[in-house]
């Protein structure tokens, strides 16, 4: 359940931003979670609710935007979209793929007051 550690990381980011951008409460947190990012959005939501109790983000909504996995197919010579890391190229069926996107795990935007 490493999502708990990831959510602790979110709280640290919120606390830093609260100091630098001058807000006291967080009402919503928006994340980008890539298809290959080692984090399950469902587990993130569960852990976020548990870990934000009594913090500046108590009761805040977590909105997760899932971003697709992208890879460069060496055989086709172009970028393709993958659902899973172990998928073959949807065009040529080979596994000659270098992952180029979908690893992100980022806080993008906050709603605060």
């Amino acid at each position, binding site marked *: *359940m490493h999502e708990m*550690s*990831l959510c602790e990381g979110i709280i640290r980011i919120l606390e830093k*931003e609260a100091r630098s951008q001058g*807000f006291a409460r967080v*009402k919503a947190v928006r994340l980008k979670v890539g298809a290959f990012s*080692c984090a399950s959005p469902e587990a993130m939501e569960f852990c976020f609710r548990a870990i934000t109790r009594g913090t500046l983000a108590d009761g805040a909504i977590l909105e997760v935007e899932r971003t697709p996995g992208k890879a460069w197919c060496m055989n086709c010579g172009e970028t393709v979209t993958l659902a899973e890391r*172990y998928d073959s190229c949807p065009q040529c069926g080979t596994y000659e793929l270098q992952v180029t996107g979908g690893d992100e795990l980022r806080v993008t935007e*906050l*709603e605060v007051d």
Partner: protein
Amino acid sequence: MSHARIVQVERDILGENDRLAADNRAFLASQRILALNLVSGPGSGKTTLLVRTIDDLKDRFPIAVIEGDQQTAFDAERIRAAGVPSVQINTGKGCHLDAHMVGHAMERLRPQPQSLLFIENVGNLVCPAAFDLGEAGKVVMLSVTEGEDKPLKYPDMFHASTLMLLTKIDLLPHVPFDVDRCLEYARRVNPGITMLQVSALSGEGLPAWYDWIEQNRLNAGAATAAVSAAQGS
């Protein structure tokens, strides 16, 4: 009356861990220490292979070990009995090591310059994949008693690893494990992965594992030398 407003942030959730991992990596490079992060599910034979490796290599160069487990100091005691310094990290309820824990463990352990540092992660094929510790590479171990489809079931870990060690190969005559299929699955998630087959019990395949370590120790030194030369120029 609400004063709600939107704030743009754009911060990596793992940013703090990655920053501490970069500090660890810089320290290791300055000391020309090769650090390997050993990852696997529980029971793949990590500690047994580690003890055998230490026995065989400790006269060639200094070795130190950071041991991660949820509880007990059993593994660190096994490593110290093998004759090298070791520090145990107990993660409690935690399922992985992070760069912060490893940074503090290195302060306690004080590995020697040009040594080999093994970081034995918590037995878990999921969570440790996400956390950079500052190591030169992750070495994933898979035993032939586990099943050749593990690279597809746990793709993040096999993707994150540089080397796969197939362990307990002395048991191959007794178990239905397809080595070629396992390698094919691993290459689907990581086309560049190297696989070596070893047995800590019979010693089969260990010379290739030791050669791999020696080569990477040289590379660690050479990479650092190149960085020093660039900084000096």
